[in-house]
């Protein structure tokens, strides 16, 4: 049985317009053979939860450079069960200070990447860990 490609939602929650990084990552994941859905800017946590469910993605990525990562992550977490997001992988990218990494992990974020992260490391992290989150 051939496995379908890993499906990733790259999203831009909140009002932040910095989309260079999100698009760079989206292209890298695509080049690595993944199915990538990029949401475009200014999506609400509700938009993202719904899209993740409708598109049946394995990975939800949120790119945030405005400093609003904690409130936005909390809002998505509050919707997690309602949208039956189950054990999907949850990644956050952007400029998230070190001091907030633990708080994001407590909310349920699996990994945080920043502009220092190598694209191949992001790809590898997804490939190596996505299987640990079996699809519902």
């Amino acid at each position: 049985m051939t496995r379908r490609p890993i499906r990733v939602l790259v999203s831009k929650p909140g009002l932040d317009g910095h989309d260079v990084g999100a698009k760079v990552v989206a292209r890298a994941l695509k080049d690595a053979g993944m199915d990538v859905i990029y949401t475009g800017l200014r999506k609400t946590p509700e938009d993202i939860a719904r899209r993740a469910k409708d598109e049946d993605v394995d990975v939800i990525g949120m790119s945030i450079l405005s400093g609003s990562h904690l409130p936005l992550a909390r809002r998505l977490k509050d919707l997690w069960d309602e949208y039956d997001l189950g054990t999907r992988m949850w990644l956050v990218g952007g400029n998230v200070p070190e001091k907030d990494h633990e708080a994001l992990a407590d909310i349920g974020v699996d990994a945080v990447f920043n502009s220092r992260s190598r694209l191949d490391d992001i790809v590898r992290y997804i490939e190596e860990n996505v299987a640990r989150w079996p699809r519902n």
Partner: protein
Amino acid sequence: MAEELTREMKSGLELPHGVAPVFADSGIEVKPVYTAADLNGGNGSGGGNGAGEERPGEYPFTRGIHADMYRRRPWTMRQYTGFGNAQATNERFHYLIETGNTGLNVAFDLPSQCGLDSDDPAAEGEVGRVGMAVDSLRDFEVAFDGVDLDAITVSLTVNGAAAIMIAMYLAMAEKRGYDIATLRGTAQNDILKEMVGRGTWVFPVEPSVRLVGDTIEYCARHAPNYSPVSVCGYHIRESGCDPAEEMGYAFEIAKAYIDETLRRGLAIDDFAGRLSFNFNVFGKLFEEVAKFRAGRRMWAKILKEQYGAKNPKTMWMRMIAGGGGFGLTIDQPENNIMRGAYYALSAVLSGAQTIALCCYDEAYTIPSPRAQQISIRTMQLLIEELGLCDTVDPLGGSYFVEALTDGMEAKIEAAMQRVQDEGGIVAGIAGGRIQDRVSQQAYEHHRRVENGEARKVGVNCYRVPEEKPDVEFHPERREDLDMQLASLKQIRAERSADAVDRALKRLHADAVAGANTMPAIVEAVKAYATVGEITGVLAGVYGRFEEPVTI
């Protein structure tokens, strides 16, 4: 060695044995040495007549728009700031002015930039975070309290909500007794680039361009010294394009605003001289200088030859240059201090009217007062100690810089031609073609940094073991947000509901009729209508931008 020889053979130039070809970021091959034979060859445009022939302050202004440039007055130092509420921002404004800033560059928070009030559910978590929160005219009154608006020119970095913020600025100044017929100042107000990079658009492309036209027309008639638009190649460069394209896109965008304004019956010399530009300066120093020299010459020719401008001031490519955010790194942030100094040097050698530098800590936080002071001191050093103000266009006549200026002119021309061939800038942005191209370039650049082809100090060479960065994080103050929400509530309770209602109805009617919306927006802000209320009325008529997603 074998590899070097192969690369040498690929090069069209005769290179010394073993020397590999080198390219500027816009793709121009750079020779190991330039001589008098490289002058005047150019592209036959007639502008690149090299050393000595042309004088600054004279058409086509390759060497600068003023004859005496910084001899008379150094560039305006306009560091970008704003956070929390108007009160907190006012304190920082005064700190920057005391430190030597000669202009202000206002950062608005994202809800304000996107036309949302601070109590809008979509603003949750974003109020006051990346800039100051503005809901009503009251916030402008507080933010600029004690600032002499004749001595300190103010630039408003806002786009989707720019018409409202311009109206608030003019209303605030008028209330304080300034004559808006002579008031100077600038708004960014470049919505087309916002749709390529930066992202604080609100309305669809066509009404957005009309709204820019409304502001240009209104200012031409009522505030003729105010610069209603600063066309930004800057953010398109930040988003991935090369330096020549940065300028090419900016010129095509500026032409779109000019065409929109001409349709209204204004003559070119009535308004085009108040359009200005915002360009980036990271990258190769001589290429940047050549970009600006070529750009000035081209813009002057476009205005004179294509638009029939008669007044030389209409032909000036006035600009803020600086920033360089894309060139700064999160690694070894103190290296950004040196980068900032070189970027400032690029901007000064290029004849910028205004300079703003990104601070070294900006990858981490809203800049600390100390980081802002370092940026301002960087520019003051150039003025006071390095002799950069002593002569105009000091690189004019350099074989290399003159040849590169001609080369950049050809590249910028080609970038503009491609946009035109593909259906024009407005269609290219509405359909997402330009965003797609620019973002692919960003991706390819990122890969080149990762594989070491594009060298980045501290990132892919000269690395040190990761250490805790020596930066001071900006404190988020919950009380600023509480104050903002309380003040908004108070404004809504105290203002005349009838006056607001009347103004918003007039705005709706004018928007539906396709009349200039600025008079009604000015009336609305004077009645303390909020950013969210005014935007809501316009969105009800215009709709909202649907971003073409091209990945």
